[in-house]
């Protein structure tokens, strides 16, 4: 762009163009528009295709765990229609409790995908719903770049918008959740989040009802898509509060916030999973408080206008404020005490207090994406943006406006949350990209202006070749100028170098780290060839084809969604961890002796038990490594399960020195059944566990109540059949 602009100025400086100066000026504008649109188009396409690495590396498939649930529900929605979907009681999960799907999910993603599918079908594109689901995330990522452009334009200028679009298109923090196949709520939610913020900022800037209505609808879409809408409903009131405190209260703000809050709240109530939480739950009370505060403020403003007396107004202010605050506090207190307003949930607490989950809710702490973020993953996901972010903040503070205050607040709060939980890096990414874009754009703009203003005085000169000579001669007159120019060029080159490094880093991260579907595992073979372990699907497909259609499968909750979606069998627990007791029961069964576990399994009607075992392949995220969480979660509800029983001097081991309870619990037995006969690695004794690098402690495992039903070719998934009870006579 900069080069093109220079070209345009060259044209201006040439004598021929002097005739048609007016038409040329218009042309420059058109050129700029053309360049801007083509850059945007390229960014749009780039954002889409960079997310297709996973399809190229593996195949067009749904990734990981939760997306399988989303895929299954989308399938149901497209096959049975919306009302069936809304009223769906799923008896295939959480046996014997079942799950009311329509009332316990955010339908935004499924409805979006189904909508795209129906449109394509209507246009006679014979696509499969799976393809639509796989490509939903990249498609929305592309749309996010457009929103980022407009947001950047709103915050700073169109240059910053373009940079923001380009940065967010390839930012690994966002790509991690939006590669093709990662069909999760976040895929559309980030788009909705940024859209809502953009529309709200736009509404505040212009005080327009239309924009704030649009932002209410954006908020509605966000609520329908992801539980992270809590962030919006708390950030916007916070922002309004900050504006009030800093004396930036205006009628525009009043209109924007009230319209957005009231309409957004009413719309959000239409989502069954959210229901009346906006007026009943503690997490949403801040927004309501700010809403009333706005009314008080408006009222005070009106009174002030009427009174025209400073002293009287001060007295009035004191009384009204005390009254308002006390009324609010009393209402909140009464609401909480009477149970009308539910207290904050554990997830919310764990955001405010990172250690809360570890002590109180092991099920949240057990998820790896809920861990506090390490510095390395910040660097990994943001790369140079991490450095540009403070610079951008500086620029924002330099040119403070309602919009920049918003982005600063968004950036700072989301950065805090990103620090608390790994997965919330995602929420911070758009803010970081926008703020960094401001830094990049402002820096480059300043420098290129510097470079250009130096050339301007030389325009009377003959050619380009002599330009540098002239500037150097001028430099003799003004000491600082040549350094400034050379420095600017050097810094520009540096900035471009950094941005190139960023692009390279992003591409590398995307292709290497974030494109694995985690269902299919790839490894390098001994000769450098690619080895694929497709054991998960092997096992799930075996379940689907060769077990009775009403068979109940017990496994740790991680695999629940996959078993129902791919295996089409009923599971006891799944990734929707709504019933801690049920999960604890499964955890207890896994950590008990076989006979005790048999009783539990009989009571749950379990027909098959599925365990994931990495001892043969060296796959480390298997059930033995997750086992301590099962013990902790099981022990949290059933005190008979005690964590120290499974540890030796506080150490978790599976070899000969392991705790006796560990060596005889169900999980150990199922994982290592007949493993002692197998030689896994050359030069190691039989029964050598490659995932943990030890020889197992119990090689002679006898199963009394279960029998091996199937083990996949690389032993990653092992399925056992629960034997029927013995005859009593």
């Amino acid at each position, binding site marked *: 762009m900069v080069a093109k602009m220079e070209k345009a100025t060259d044209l201006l400086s040439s004598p021929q163009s002097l005739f048609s100066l007016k038409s040329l000026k218009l042309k420059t504008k058109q050129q700029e528009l053309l360049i801007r649109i083509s850059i945007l188009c390229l960014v749009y396409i780039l954002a889409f295709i960079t997310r297709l690495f996973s399809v190229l590396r593996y*195949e067009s*498939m749904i990734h990981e765990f939760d997306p399988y649930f989303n895929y299954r529900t989308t399938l149901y929605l497209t096959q049975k229609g919306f009302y069936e979907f809304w009223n769906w009681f799923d008896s295939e999960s959480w046996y014997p409790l079942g799950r009311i799907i329509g009332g316990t999910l955010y339908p935004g993603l499924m409805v979006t995908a189904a909508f795209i599918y129906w449109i394509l079908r209507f*246009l*006679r*594109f*014979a696509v499969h719903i799976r393809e639509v689901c796989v490509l939903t995330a990249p498609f929305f990522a592309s749309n996010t770049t457009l929103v980022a452009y407009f947001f950047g334009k709103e915050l700073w200028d169109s240059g910053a918008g373009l940079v923001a679009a380009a940065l967010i298109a390839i930012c690994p923090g966002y790509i991690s959740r939006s590669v093709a196949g990662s069909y999760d709520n976040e895929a559309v939610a980030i788009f909705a989040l940024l859209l809502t913020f953009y529309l709200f900022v736009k509404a505040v800037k212009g005080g327009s009802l239309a924009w704030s209505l649009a932002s209410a609808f954006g908020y509605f879409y966000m609520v329908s898509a992801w539980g992270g809408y809590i962030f919006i409903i708390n950030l916007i009131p916070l922002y309004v509060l900050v504006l009030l405190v800093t004396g930036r209260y205006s009628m525009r703000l009043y209109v924007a916030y009230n319209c957005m809050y009231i309409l957004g709240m009413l719309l959000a109530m239409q989502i069954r999973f959210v229901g009346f939480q906006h007026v009943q739950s503690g997490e949403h009370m801040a927004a309501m408080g700010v809403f009333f505060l706005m009314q008080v403020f408006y009222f005070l403003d009106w009174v002030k206008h009427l009174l025209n007396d400073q002293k009287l107004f001060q007295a009035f202010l004191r009384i009204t404020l005390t009254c308002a605050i006390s009324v609010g506090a009393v209402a909140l207190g009464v609401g909480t005490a009477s149970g009308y307003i539910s207290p904050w949930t554990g997830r919310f607490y764990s955001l405010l207090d990172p250690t809360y989950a570890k002590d109180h809710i092991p099920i949240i702490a057990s998820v790896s994406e809920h861990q506090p973020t390490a510095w390395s993953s910040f660097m990994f996901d943001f790369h140079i943006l991490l450095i540009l972010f403070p610079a951008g903040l500086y620029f924002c503070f330099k040119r403070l406006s309602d919009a920049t205050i918003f982005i600063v607040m968004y950036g700072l709060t989301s950065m805090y949350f990103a620090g608390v939980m790994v997965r919330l890096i995602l929420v911070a990414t758009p803010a970081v990209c926008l703020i960094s874009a401001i830094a990049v754009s402002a820096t480059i703009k300043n420098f290129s202006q510097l470079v250009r203003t130096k050339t301007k005085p030389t325009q009377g000169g003959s050619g380009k070749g002599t330009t540098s000579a002239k500037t150097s001669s001028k430099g003799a007159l003004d000491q600082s100028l040549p350094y400034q120019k050379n420095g600017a060029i050097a810094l520009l080159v540096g900035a471009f170098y950094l941005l190139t490094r960023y692009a390279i880093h992003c591409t590398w991260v995307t292709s290497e780290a974030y494109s694995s579907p985690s*269902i*299919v595992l790839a490894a390098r073979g001994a000769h450098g060839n690619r080895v*694929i372990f*497709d054991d998960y*699907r*092997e096992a*799930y*497909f*075996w379940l*689907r*084809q*060769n077990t009775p259609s009403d068979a109940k499968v017990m496994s740790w909750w991680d695999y629940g969604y996959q078993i129902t979606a*791919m295996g089409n069998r009923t599971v006891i627990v799944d990734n929707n961890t709504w019933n801690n007791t049920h999960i604890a029961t499964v955890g207890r069964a896994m950590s008990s002796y076989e006979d005790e576990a048999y009783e539990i399994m009989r009571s749950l009607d379990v027909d098959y038990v599925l365990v994931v075992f990495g001892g043969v392949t060296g796959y480390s995220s298997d059930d033995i490594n997750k086992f301590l969480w099962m013990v902790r979660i099981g022990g949290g509800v059933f005190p008979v399960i005690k964590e120290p029983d499974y540890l030796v001097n506080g150490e978790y081991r599976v070899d000969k020195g392991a705790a006796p309870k560990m060596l005889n619990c169900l999980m150990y037995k199922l994982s290592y059944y*007949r493993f002692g*006969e*197998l030689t896994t690695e050359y030069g190691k004794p039989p029964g050598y566990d490659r995932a943990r690098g030890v020889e197992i402690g119990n090689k002679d495992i006898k199963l009394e109540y279960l*029998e*091996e*039903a*199937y*083990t*996949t*070719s690389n*032993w990653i998934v092992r399925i056992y059949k629960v034997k029927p009870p013995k005859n009593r006579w």
Partner: protein
Amino acid sequence: MGAMAILRLALVFSIFTSLSLTRSSPSPSPQLQIVNAERRIDLNSHIVKVFLTLKVENIGESPASEVLLAFSPTEADHLALVKAAAVASKKKKKSYLPLDVKPINLVDGPNGTKYYLVYLLKPLVKGEAISLEVLYLLTHSLEPFPVEISQSESQLVYYRDSAKILSPYPIKQQATFLKAPTSRVESFTRVEPTDRANTELRYGPYEEQRPYSYSPVIVHFENNNAFAVVEELVREIEISHWGSVQVTEHYKLVHAGARHKGVFSRVEYQSRPSHSGVSSFKHLLAELPPRVHSVYYRDNIGNISSSRLRTNRKKQSELLIEPRYPLFGGWKSTFVIGYGVPLEDFLFEAADGTRYLNYSFGCPLGQTVVDKLTVKVVLPEGSKNPSAVVPFPVEQRFEKKYSYLDVVGRTVVVLEKENVVPEHNSPFQVYYQFSPIYMLAEPLMLTSVFFLFFMACVTYLQVDLSISKIKQT
């Protein structure tokens, strides 16, 4: 009301009987006799192949132009294919002339015997003899016993047949040979003279047998070959005049042998492949046409990575497919194979301008039985007057299918056949008329849509839709 119904029933019955009477006009002529009959039954795979050599002689007065073959009702149910050929030996060189074989409904056969009629090329006059070679294939005729086996056991099956050849004609001399896959034959019924040599069993020779002689025998033997049965196969052959024929095949595969019982142990399956799961099978070989491209092998949860393709430009390409798990008795698997082949290899233009597709009918997997085969030929949009020519009786109907950018839909010729064996892999033809102008319909549609879109953009940018003009400052 009741009387009416009875009347109607009687009417229907009388029509039916008269029909069947008229159809049964070529009653078994007693003038024929079989001088020599030899039957070789191949029990190697789960498709039982029976080679029957008959020497038929006319001893009556009138010339005979047909020969009847008789099958017991259970055999007739499992009969997949009957082929017959006349042996003509000229100068020590044997040549086979294929003959027409058709099932025929005769009511007067004892014990529900079913008949097939072999049409001779020229009528057999008195005293003349002819040699016939008959091949017939039986599916689902090996009954596993024991019905359930564990992983370490091998599979034993029963085969039931008659020691003497069932025929409406007297047979002067006959013998039956059964070939078992291994020397392990647990038991067999003796109908003297009976002899067993290693893997071969001999019944006979029997002399001077009257018509419809039957003496049931059971042979119990080991058969560990893959009992691969495709319960349902839907082959969709989609013709695109842009240069390719796309074939998609949906399989429902099952191991129809003795059911697997109890434990499946991976350790034993891995470490002792010769003793463990001998009756199971791991892979199947599909023979695809030469010059096949863009082959995929997947099921409804995604791609199955364990397959190997050996393409060949001249001969058949081979696709070795491995289901996700080894198939033990009773285990099922469903999958899809898809591939494209160049159009010019399979689509031809007849002399009168109609086009025809010439493609192989049966299942490309070797040694499998297909219980129900549906072949769907999707003709391009705008094709007219489709008709199919298949060398054996099939059910035919038409459907409509909507694919990419279709407006009127594509005509689908659906051909259905039950009990299909690899011997059915003979080419069939689908004739239709098609004008190449229809090929342009879809590109034109797309271009016009884009054109309209850009036009709309241009108009939107040019036209000022605002109600009140905002003053320019």
